[in-house]
């Protein structure tokens, strides 16, 4: 009997860990409970916009902003450091939520939790933007400000989408770097994390059409990009396949930050440096490949700055100060954003080569 009881208790506990595992670690810092009544009268900015400014003032400490990232990896680790910095700089009550798996479902469940907690603003880097729209609408109906990053396609459904740059420009940068590395001729293949990843697809499309227009001697081996599933292993395995299917391939570009997997595959075949690779890159994961020459160029933007800017923008909107053309989001490259509809573009592309890679430590 005792055993039976114990087994029930333990299985309940185990089921609970399942739920808790994907859940939240919200820190209820007691400091934000004291909302001085005096502030209400002093700040007049609040009533100038449609945002849910309730009756708080502009004090950042009064606003709870949560960033929901795609998954746990060094890219979003860096974004978290930027958000920590924002917290330090402004006192904004901002935190990061990391989904267990890189899919829309886990992001949706985290967002549902946040809606229930009635936070002031949610920032999200969607894994699959369109899948998140119903949840985003639900959040906004509840008076929560929603700011996205890397999702200009659903900008109409959110309060603001923050982009590091115009995606077409970045895609063309990929194309230009690849063309330079390949000497303007030969076959190439493009990778994305997944076909539903909007920014990856935007860069891919821009890069391919740029190459078609400007480098007639370069040929894309496939009509669609290959998916690396946002994993090094995926990039490695797919690169091996492409090498066999198209032995005369001369270049790869990877819009997901997994170019290292392609470089590994090339090195296994003694093709490192012969076949050119241009990839979205994070210094900590790509430095060795840039230095040994198997990766020609790494392209990037600073996730820390993007996270900083997105959360700061969320605060500006939530507090009723709003965001307009030329607003300063306080992060490098986002000093004067250009607003196009609901999308705020910064100008913050980063380019890595073997020479400058050591200057960055994220």
């Amino acid at each position, binding site marked *: 009997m005792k055993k039976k009881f114990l087994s029930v208790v333990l299985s309940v506990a185990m089921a609970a860990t399942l739920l808790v595992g994907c859940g939240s670690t919200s820190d209820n810092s007691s400091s934000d409970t004291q909302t001085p009544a005096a502030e209400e009268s002093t700040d007049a900015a609040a009533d100038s916009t449609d945002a849910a400014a309730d009756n708080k003032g502009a004090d950042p400490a009064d606003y709870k902003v949560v960033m929901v990232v795609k998954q746990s990896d060094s890219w979003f680790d860096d974004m978290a450091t930027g958000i920590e910095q924002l917290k330090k700089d402004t006192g904004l009550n901002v935190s990061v939520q990391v989904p267990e798996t890189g899919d829309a479902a886990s992001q949706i469940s985290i967002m549902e939790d946040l809606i229930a907690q009635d936070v002031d603003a949610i920032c999200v880097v969607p894994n699959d933007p369109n899948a998140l729209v119903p949840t985003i609408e639900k959040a906004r109906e509840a008076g929560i400000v929603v700011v996205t990053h890397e999702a200009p396609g659903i900008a109409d459904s959110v309060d603001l989408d923050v982009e590091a740059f115009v995606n077409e420009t970045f895609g063309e940068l990929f194309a230009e770097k690849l063309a330079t590395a390949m000497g303007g001729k030969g076959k190439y293949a493009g990778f994305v994390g997944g076909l539903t990843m909007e920014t990856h697809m935007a860069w891919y499309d821009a890069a391919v059409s740029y190459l078609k227009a400007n480098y007639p001697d370069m040929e894309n081996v496939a009509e669609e990009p290959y998916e690396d599933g946002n994993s090094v292993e995926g990039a490695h395995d797919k690169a*091996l396949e492409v090498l066999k299917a198209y032995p005369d391939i001369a270049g790869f570009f990877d819009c997901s930050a997994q170019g290292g997997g392609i470089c590994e595959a090339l090195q296994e075949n003694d093709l490192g440096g012969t076949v050119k690779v241009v990839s979205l890159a994070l210094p900590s994961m790509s*430095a060795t490949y840039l230095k040994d020459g198997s990766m020609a160029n790494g392209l990037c933007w600073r996730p820390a700055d993007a996270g900083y800017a997105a959360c700061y923008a969320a605060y500006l909107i939530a507090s009723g100060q709003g965001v307009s053309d030329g607003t300063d989001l306080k992060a490098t490259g986002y000093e004067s954003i250009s607003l196009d509809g609901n999308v705020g573009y910064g100008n913050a592309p980063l380019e890595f080569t073997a020479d400058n890679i050591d200057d960055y430590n994220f």
Partner: protein
Amino acid sequence: MTKKIDPFQRMLLIIIVVYSVFVTIKNPGFFQIQTVFDIIKTSSTTMIVAMGLLVVMISGGIDVSFMAIALFGSYTSLYIMIQTGINNLAFAFVVSMAIGIVLGLINAVLISWLKLPPFIITLGTQNLFHGIMTTFISDKSFGSGVLPECLHKFGQGTLFKVATANGSTGLTVSLIPVLIAGLATYFILRKTMIGRGIVAIGNDEESARRAGFNPFKIRLFVYAYSGALAGMMGIVYAAQVNALYPNKMVGDELMVVAAVVIGGTKITGGQGKIFGAVLGVLITYLLNSTLIMIGLSSSWNNLFVGAILVIAVAITSYQERVKNRKHLIFTE
């Protein structure tokens, strides 16, 4: 192994051969030694854990926590190595496998003690182990620059090299752990009393108990063995991708379960062959790694792999039914 190859495995072999011929016709580039080497390399990690899972499934259990164990073992041991600067491959394997054994024993104790279905227990421990790791050890990712040098050497290592059209290719050293796992499994299942015990409790636990086997001890061994192989696989995986992530592997366990079941292992226990599991893994990898070869675009991936898997399972189970009818066994 068996003198006469059973129809189940013959069917799998036929599917592999027919499919390979089909791919070769579509793209002659498939028919070369490099293809074999590449499939050996990319499937090596799955092969290792498939052996552990096979033993668990023969014993009548199931384990869906092995990927979490692999991640826990490899991440922890490599994390220690990064922090302390130890650069020794044996250390990585020993620590990772030891952690695997401990976690496997936890699984076995919970299953025996709570008398709950192993699927529920290991589903729970999968999250539990992963959660403990990310909470108490670390959840940072590490790139190739900071990982121990020996790991990269092992991941890129080859037994011998062959020149290809535009470079060279080699047979991966990862084959060695795969062979060790395969031979150890063969030895345990075929040559030891404990192996007979595993099959016995998989067929009927009560009869096995009356015949003098101790199901608890056997279960301890089985899950510890699965854990040890998972720990080994974790290091091989990290060496191959040459990076350490706190969130990879977990989530891929059902693909391994599918591969082992396709290989003819009974999900209810008591029956299963090493060669069958190997063929099952090969089929799933063959399907996954030939889409580019036959010119299918990425959006076809899941549809195609899913369809072929269902067909493969349907054919093999039909074979099994025909065989059973012949022996006047009516299971349905």
